[in-house]
């Protein structure tokens, strides 16, 4: 995964630093007084020939000055715009939404134009700023799911997790994966099949439940998601389950009625944690999805799915930047164990930015 983005970022960074290097020598030639240019030319010639050693030594004091001027360079803001273009395109090409590209641009601009850059490792410096900017976007207060379930006292259990999202983003399978993960931490999870809209939606979760040996509460006789979750919580209380994971129907965030339903579900069942499932293949629309869902009910965290199919990885940046919500896990396959903890360092490494 992310190989494409990695390549692109590398190419873009190379292009920028290449441009910058060229830029610097040119600028230097233009700004230096005529005599100095002559001197410098001489210097270069001498350096190549490496014969007239004594002259070199004679003029060394001056050369040093020139060298400094060439190797440290302040980029003007206009120059930056021009230089940034290849990187901007690379980011856009990789599903990073426009708003986020602007943000990264701003960060880099501040970083790269405020102080003189040394010529030696321009590439490193650009990479560093990029890394810093991405880290800033992704570095949000983490949610320690296992910890917060542990903290929840026996009387207050079950800990209720509500899973919401767009149609076909992978909610049901993620619920099952999450249940399996929690089981590993020796919690007893209970699944609530509240996808009452989709044909055979509840049966799907029941099947998953069988696979991972977790009981599923479902009621084929009702279309009311809210009551299914309510029943599940009640059941969990009686039978002392630790966690209830509620799968809801997929909904498109601009459908008022469905969003109202979601509000009602949240109000009645008062979940401890609301997780928004986002498909990592989503393009710029991920910004809208994140924003709208968070507007309607407070989203606590994100799980990105289908990351294994995703070469580009930009959606991750877009979603977290817009929502300012941490990524809990990544869905990385169709098997029940394919749920990976999100780790910023790992992500940066995959992008070749370590």
């Amino acid at each position: 995964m992310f190989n494409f983005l990695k390549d692109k970022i590398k190419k873009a960074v190379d292009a920028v630093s290449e441009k910058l290097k060229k830029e610097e020598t040119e600028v230097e030639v233009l700004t230096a007084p005529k005599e100095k240019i002559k001197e410098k030319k001489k210097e270069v010639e001498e350096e190549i020939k490496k014969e007239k050693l004594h002259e070199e030594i004679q003029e060394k004091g001056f050369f040093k000055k020139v060298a400094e001027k060439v190797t440290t360079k302040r980029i003007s803001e206009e120059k930056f715009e021009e230089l940034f273009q290849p990187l901007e395109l690379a980011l856009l090409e990789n599903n990073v939404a426009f708003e986020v590209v602007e943000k990264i641009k701003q960060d880099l601009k501040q970083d790269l134009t405020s102080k003189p850059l040394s010529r030696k490792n321009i590439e490193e410096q650009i990479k560093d700023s990029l890394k810093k900017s991405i880290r800033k976007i992704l570095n949000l207060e983490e949610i320690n799911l296992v910890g917060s379930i542990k903290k929840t006292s026996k009387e207050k259990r079950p800990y209720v997790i509500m899973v919401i999202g767009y149609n076909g983003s992978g909610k049901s399978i993620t619920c099952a994966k999450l249940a399996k993960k929690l089981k590993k931490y020796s919690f007893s999870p209970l699944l609530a099949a509240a996808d009452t809209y989709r044909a055979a939606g509840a049966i799907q979760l029941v099947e998953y439940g069988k696979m991972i040996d977790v009981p599923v509460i479902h009621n084929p006789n009702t279309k009311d998601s809210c009551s299914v979750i309510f029943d599940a919580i009640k059941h969990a209380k009686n039978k002392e389950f630790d966690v209830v994971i509620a799968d809801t129907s997929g909904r498109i965030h601009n459908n008022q009625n469905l969003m109202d339903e979601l509000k009602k579900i949240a109000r009645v069942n008062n979940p401890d944690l609301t997780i928004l499932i986002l498909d990592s293949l989503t393009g710029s629309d991920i910004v809208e999805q994140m924003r709208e869902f968070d507007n309607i009910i407070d989203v606590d965290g994100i799980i990105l799915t289908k990351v294994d199919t995703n070469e580009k990885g930009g959606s991750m940046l877009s979603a977290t930047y817009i929502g300012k919500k941490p990524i809990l896990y990544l869905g990385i396959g169709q098997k029940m164990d394919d749920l990976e903890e999100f780790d910023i360092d790992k992500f940066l490494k995959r992008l070749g930015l370590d």
Partner: protein
Amino acid sequence: MVLESLSEKLKESLRKITKSIFVDKRVIEDLVKDLQRSLLSADVDVQLVFDLTEKIKQRALEEKPPKTISQKEFLIKIVYEELVNFLGKEKSEIKIERKKPFKIMMVGLFGNGKTTLAQKLAKYYSKRNYKVATLGLDVHRPSAPEQLQQLSKQINIPCFINPEEKDPIKIYKQFEKEYKKYDILIIDTAGRDALSDDLIQEIESLKKEINPDETVLVFSADIGQDLKNQAEAFKKACNITSIVVTKMDGTAKGGGALVGAASTGAKIKFLGTGEKPEDLEPYIPERFVSRLLGMGDLETLLEKAKEAISDEEAKDLGKKFLKGEFNLLDLYEQMEAMKKMGPISKVMEMIPGFSQLKLPKDALQVQEGKLKKWRIAMNSMTKEELERPDEVMSTERINRISKGSGIQGSEIRDLIKQHKTVKKMMKMMKGKDPSKLMKKFKLPGM
């Protein structure tokens, strides 16, 4: 709905042109830059964007406008033409051959709406008098066969599934004798990642065994820049012949999906526009572009209206309109027809001029809620009340209707008021040449 934001941005770029006094190189370059930005943020593939904008720039700089139109109009025309060019010139349909059965196979990524589309296509073709059946070969996702079965049942279409069997080819062979009874067989397959070898092998062998007449790549409107790779891989594995873009009713700009698809060579045939079985529109590039540029889309609306109201009914209604006889029953009929056409918000967007009007979201929602109540209230009215509401309606009657239907009196009064307004409009239209009247309302294209 469709491409709202994309068209917003395009409109803005075009507005900029109309505002500028001269069209010079700078204006063109600005336009090109704006276009690039809006297309990119609508998930259109980067390479494609540059190809397209380069072409527009070249034409705009080189070609001279004909004398009859201004330079500005010419520039807009170029943008329009190139966009149409880009999205495929002609409307293309799936040509159903009489071969018993004509096999249509769905392929695509996970969660992009294949199964739902199978139902929509089944409904679309059965409405056009084909005998249709569905076949569920999604053996990976639990309960996928059951989903297809339930969806098929909703629209009374036979469905072949075997939830026990895990080999799709065996399932296909199991029912082989049955297929001959149908004109069209719609085959649902499992969602897959086109870059994963196992799943691609499965679809390759399925393709070999089934030999479908039409292979449809299904993907969602919100897919981003990843689409290009996926679409190309699918094409390589099973030779895609059609494309359907789903979830066009979301906020997704859809640009990536559409243009990315165009780049793989297969034609877009349908757009999925909602969760109901009838939420499927044939894709017509020109209409799509005019919707993009805010010119409205009369043709789609007319076609929908045609489906909803039979010609006979339409004639009757027309006569009544002109005579100025328009009772509550007619209003009811109209509402019924509207319901068949889909939610009002969608219908409104298709009327030229309305798309620019930008009705607030809530206004339409209220309107729709009202319609529902009115219909309930009408069910509690006597024939007399329905036919001559303005003559017989009284407070007592309204109270009675209110009690009978559970609808508040004020709502019923609103309904009667609405009827009066419409009737008044009808009377105004009486004896006038409709085409002139249209001009008066400034509806373009009629």
